[in-house]
């Protein structure tokens, strides 16, 4: 990225950036008003009521408990309260937009580690310290860390989120301007924290398709996940076809985004966090009706591998809620056939 010249406002390159900038302008206006008001009054009083020999202002010993005083106190409590409730509500509503990815968002996986970002695209492409995304499409990042806490921050998109070890966090944006933007790690993570960054490239649809086509040659994430699934021998216990039950371990087909009943009677939703936990700490939340025979895979599966497995399990379920970029067919043993026919830009997307 070519160094930009001096500027006072960052690029506004995502749909949310425009909203954040208006909110910011509102805050700046309110702050300027109150700062200047207070500054003006102080200077004015300091001059007008400056000490002069023998001069005693009228009513100097009136105290603040007079009726006028009470009214003033109420006025200058209630007005700031009112303004600040607007600040709260406006900020919160933008946050809700930022927090809830649209259902049609393209999912991309990000793994942070000291001190680099590793990115996996659904279609299999991988990159380091760079992120290529198409313009005008909703992008959803699912992120985790291999060590300390990091934070995936793109100021031009006005968004960031911490990236934690041992769990997934989410961030989404809709780039609206083609270009190259800074990617920073914004949560302090050790020696090279300030070097843990890179560039986000927003490409036109066509450029993006070209870029994706270069791919990784390893197949989609779900396919890679299936390979890992087989390699680890998960299938020895877990059935992965519809209506196949063996009593040893839950059937994974169709399980994603359903609710399962646990041994202690409570109910939990099968989401990324639950799948991850079940691989790492199988006994933590055992599904009712199964024995705790599953060994832990802690140390055997990397965070990237974990993402592949999850994506594989998700691919076993009909698309619920999210029409991610990967084709929705379950990757079964016949999945290899589909490999070549993978569309660069998912159908039903435009």
């Amino acid at each position, binding site marked *: 990225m070519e160094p930009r010249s001096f500027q006072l406002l960052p690029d506004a390159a995502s749909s949310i950036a425009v909203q954040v900038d208006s909110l910011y302008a509102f805050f700046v206006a309110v702050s300027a008003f109150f700062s200047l008001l207070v500054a003006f009054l102080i200077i004015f009083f300091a001059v007008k009521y400056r000490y002069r020999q023998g001069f005693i202002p009228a009513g100097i010993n009136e105290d603040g408990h007079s009726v006028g005083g009470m009214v003033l106190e109420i006025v200058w409590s209630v007005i700031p309260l009112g303004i600040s409730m607007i600040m709260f509500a406006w900020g919160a509503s933008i946050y809700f937009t930022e*927090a*809830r990815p649209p259902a049609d968002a393209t999912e991309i996986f990000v793994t942070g580690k000291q001190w680099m970002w590793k990115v996996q695209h659904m279609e299999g492409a991988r990159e380091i310290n760079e992120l290529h995304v198409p313009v005008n499409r909703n992008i959803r990042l*699912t992120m985790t860390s291999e060590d300390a806490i990091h934070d995936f921050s793109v100021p031009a998109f006005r968004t960031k989120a911490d990236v*934690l070890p041992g769990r997934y966090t*989410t961030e989404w944006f809709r780039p609206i301007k083609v270009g190259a933007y800074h990617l920073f790690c914004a949560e302090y993570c050790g020696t090279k924290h300030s070097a843990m960054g890179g560039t986000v490239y927003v490409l036109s649809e066509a450029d993006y398709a070209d870029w994706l086509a270069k791919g990784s040659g390893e197949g989609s994430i779900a396919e890679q996940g299936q390979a890992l699934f087989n390699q680890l021998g998960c299938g020895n216990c877990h059935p992965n076809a519809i209506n196949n039950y063996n009593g040893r371990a839950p059937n994974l087909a169709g399980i994603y985004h359903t609710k399962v009943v646990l041994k202690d009677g409570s109910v939990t939703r099968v989401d990324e966090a639950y799948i991850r936990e079940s691989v790492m700490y199988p006994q933590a939340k055992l599904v009712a009706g199964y024995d705790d025979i599953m060994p832990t895979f802690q140390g055997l599966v990397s965070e990237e591998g974990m993402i592949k497995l999850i994506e594989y399990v998700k691919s076993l379920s009909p698309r619920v809620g999210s029409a991610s970029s990967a084709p929705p067919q379950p990757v079964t043993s016949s999945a290899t056939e589909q490999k070549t026919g993978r569309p660069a830009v998912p159908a039903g997307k435009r």
Partner: protein
Amino acid sequence: MADHKAHGDGEHHIVPKRIYFIVFAALIVLTWVTAWISTVDLGAMNTVAALSIATFKASLVVLFFMHVFYGTRLTKLIVAAGVFWLILLLFITMIDIWTRTWMGVPGR
């Protein structure tokens, strides 16, 4: 001293010994009750029972062994503040823990 009149503390109220023994007996009995009740399957109520009994026992100790029952308003206020802030710490943090999955978006 501005608000000194209300202080029975200075003349140290002497608590009848009998009270100590009653409280003591209650504490011992409740200890074994709580141990026993934990073996009875009450579902989620097990935890509630354990904590209620513990709170009750603790209150007995604080009120009688520690004389708060006979103490000044200020002492009671300080004790209440301690309990209140403890609850703040626990409860407000739990707001986060309890609602983490509500949104259905990991990490939000």
